[in-house]
């Protein structure tokens, strides 16, 4: 049997060698800390502090704004300077709480607990109060994901350690350095689902991680390490569920509908910390890399830290970068300013010497079909992009436009360099808004 995987996908240059052997270094913030109120999918958090308030690390500074929402915690001690609009990593201005670090790093008292002795409700409460959200990029509140209607029907709890996005090594370092936290987090998740098996899924370019994880979960009868094929977008939710379990979900289903729950490596660690240690989510690993960075690094940083500080700590720029991306090259956001805070979902800062996208002009589609060959959603991106350009929503939906996962494979592979993903994304936004009505 071949390695577990899915149909389609691409093999972009992975660039992981730049930073994969750099152990995670803890970084203390220097400047102001900025906490956007919306670091997750769902309602923005509501501030519970005001200008001039003194806050401690781990203290709630904004509470959840609804059920699908998550609280936000200060990651340092200091004084609230105000609540103001600031630029965030998705390129828009958003309301943020700004805290001036007093450098004392005083924290609230955390209340560790033995996860084995907590009830299911207590576990979920600790996760919710810990502000845990999906740290792979989407930022879906974890307590919602872990509370499906029928928990007994969940057959698989998957830990997504694919890290298929090029250049990113934060999950890799986490799996290598702290596999026991991942296993610990998964055990807590399994407590919630009595009939589920736990799979930790790793791409086969990270055999060393798979080995460490296997050692860490020795004796755990419900946990297994699954090695999947290295291919982009192997870590996409639907692709990973299919590779690991053979179950397929479409755009109108949730993983729970297929009896699965899937969380990213760093999220599982956050679950462990929130439940077992009582510590809220206020740190994350960020890979600072790219061919324009002097000394690529993996940093464990406080949320709210400024991106510019991370770049300084990584030795600054070797050469002037043409493009800086928050996240990886396939799904990340291009930045025009570095005065941006690290959020719960910031996985990387990627600084590129050259921007291949602006170097070439799109030319006419020659109908080669490469986009359809690589599309993991099995749609026809070339056709969808034409419908999108013509605002033909009817045909866009008829040709399964909503099944696109916006992974970017089609734009990547297009020999005419057409911005297919961009066109499809815009149309999907419109179509999804109509569907919600």
């Amino acid at each position, binding site marked *: 049997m071949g390695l577990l995987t*899915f149909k389609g996908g691409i093999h*972009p*240059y992975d660039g992981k060698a730049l930073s994969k052997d750099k152990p995670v270094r803890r970084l203390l913030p220097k400047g102001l800390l900025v906490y956007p109120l919306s670091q997750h999918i769902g309602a923005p958090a509501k501030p519970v502090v005001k200008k001039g308030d003194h806050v401690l690390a781990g203290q709630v500074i904004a509470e959840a704004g609804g059920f699908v929402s998550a609280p936000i915690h200060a990651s340092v001690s200091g004084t609230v300077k105000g609540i103001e609009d600031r630029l965030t990593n998705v390129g828009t201005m958003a309301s943020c709480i700004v805290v001036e670090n007093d450098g004392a790093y005083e924290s609230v008292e955390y209340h560790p607990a033995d996860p084995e002795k907590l009830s299911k409700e207590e576990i979920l409460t600790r996760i919710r109060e810990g502000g845990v959200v999906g740290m792979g990029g989407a930022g879906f509140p974890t307590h919602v994901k872990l509370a499906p209607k029928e928990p007994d*029907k969940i*057959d698989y709890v998957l830990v997504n350690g694919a890290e298929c996005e090029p250049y990113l090594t934060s999950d890799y370092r986490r799996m290598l350095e702290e596999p026991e936290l991942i296993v610990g987090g998964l055990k807590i998740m399994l407590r919630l689902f009595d009939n589920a098996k736990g799979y930790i899924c790793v791409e086969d370019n990270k055999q060393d991680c798979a080995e460490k994880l296997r050692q860490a979960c020795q004796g755990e009868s419900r946990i297994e390490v699954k090695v999947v094929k290295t291919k982009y977008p192997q870590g996409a939710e639907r692709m990973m569920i*299919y590779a690991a379990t053979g*179950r*397929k*979900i*479409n*755009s109108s*289903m949730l993983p729970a*509908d*297929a*009896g699965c729950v899937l969380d990213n490596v760093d999220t599982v660690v956050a679950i462990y910390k929130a439940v077992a240690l009582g510590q809220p989510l206020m740190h994350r690993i960020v890979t600072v890399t790219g061919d324009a960075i002097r000394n690529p690094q993996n940093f464990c940083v406080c949320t709210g830290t400024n991106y510019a500080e991370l770049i300084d700590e990584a030795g600054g720029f070797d050469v*002037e*970068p*043409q493009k800086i991306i928050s996240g990886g*090259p*396939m*799904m*990340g956001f*291009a*930045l*025009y*300013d570095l005065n941006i805070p690290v959020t719960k979902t910031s996985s990387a800062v990627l600084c*590129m010497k050259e*921007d*291949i*996208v*602006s170097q*070439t002009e799109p*030319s*006419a*589609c*020659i*109908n*080669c*079909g490469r986009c*359809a060959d690589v599309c993991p*959603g*099995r*749609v*026809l991106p*070339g*056709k969808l992009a034409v419908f999108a350009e013509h605002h033909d929503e009817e045909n866009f939906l008829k*040709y*399964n436009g909503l*099944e696109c996962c916006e992974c*970017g494979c089609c*734009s*990547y*592979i*297009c*020999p*005419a*360099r057409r*911005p297919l*993903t*961009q066109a499809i994304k815009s149309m999907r936004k419109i179509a999804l808004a109509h569907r919600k009505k």
Partner: protein
Amino acid sequence: MEKLRVSSNPHDRSRVTTNQIMLMVVIALLPATVFGIFNFGLNAFLLTVISIVTCVLTEGIYEILMHKKLTITDFSAVVTGLLLALNLPPEAPWWIPILGGVFAILIVKQLFGGLGQNIMNPALAARCFLLLSFTGIMTDFSVSSYAQKHILDAASGSDAVSSATLLAQIKSGTAVDGTMLLDMFVGNIRGTIGETSAIALLIGGIFLVAMKIISLRIPLTYIGSFAVFYVIFGGHGIDPMYLAAELCGGGLMLGAWFMATDYVTAPVTRSGQIVYGVILGILTGIFRVFGGSAEGVSYAIIFSNLLVPLIERVTVPKAFGKGGKRHE
């Protein structure tokens, strides 16, 4: 810091471009081109050059006159010119490729919107235009005295002055033998400049498959379904000699590997490509077996080109997880 560039994701691109793909097709056509010129002589060379130059110039002049972006460097006009030349009889007059080239680029390609918008393969449409308009010239496969020395036609001993192709002779009753088959495979026969050598075309086709420019779906279903059709209706049963002669003779190899696989005029869906290949095979079989001419590849392909939008419409692939059921 200098201004940072922003764009929508993804921020990386494959290094394969349209130009490279077109260049690969040109390279893949070289064995057949070189063989054809070597085989048929100077006039074949001149026709090839005239055809390519005409196509590139037509595209360039049209785009300049229409104030469009100049696209002659993408090699697509070169591919059209080369394919047109390979579809011409070796002793055709010089104005034939000029007329054909202008028709292919101006009428079939540019007037429909340029690269990617044409509904028929330009080179083949031009060939069919010439075939209908100048039937005498386009079906005269006589060769120069230089070429006569090269072409050891199996039939040439008995009928050296015949200007008919072997395929036509077989259709009118000539029996197929081993030497004849070998000649057809190597290409020492009459025919258009580029279609005679099955081996040279196969080398090019395999090169395209190896470079992942084309997949085997269209060529194999085309050749396969034609073979099945010929076995059933060809009148020779499962006679490998006749079958092999039909596969190597005429334009089948050139058509199946290089013209049916033209991206622009072939379906983009996988199952659509198989349907398209089967239709091509059946149409070619009908034209060859029941038609007036021994040849049918060109007409089969441009006719099937017109069916492509329809084929694509009924072969939209099932999206991932579509119709997925909730797990109980």
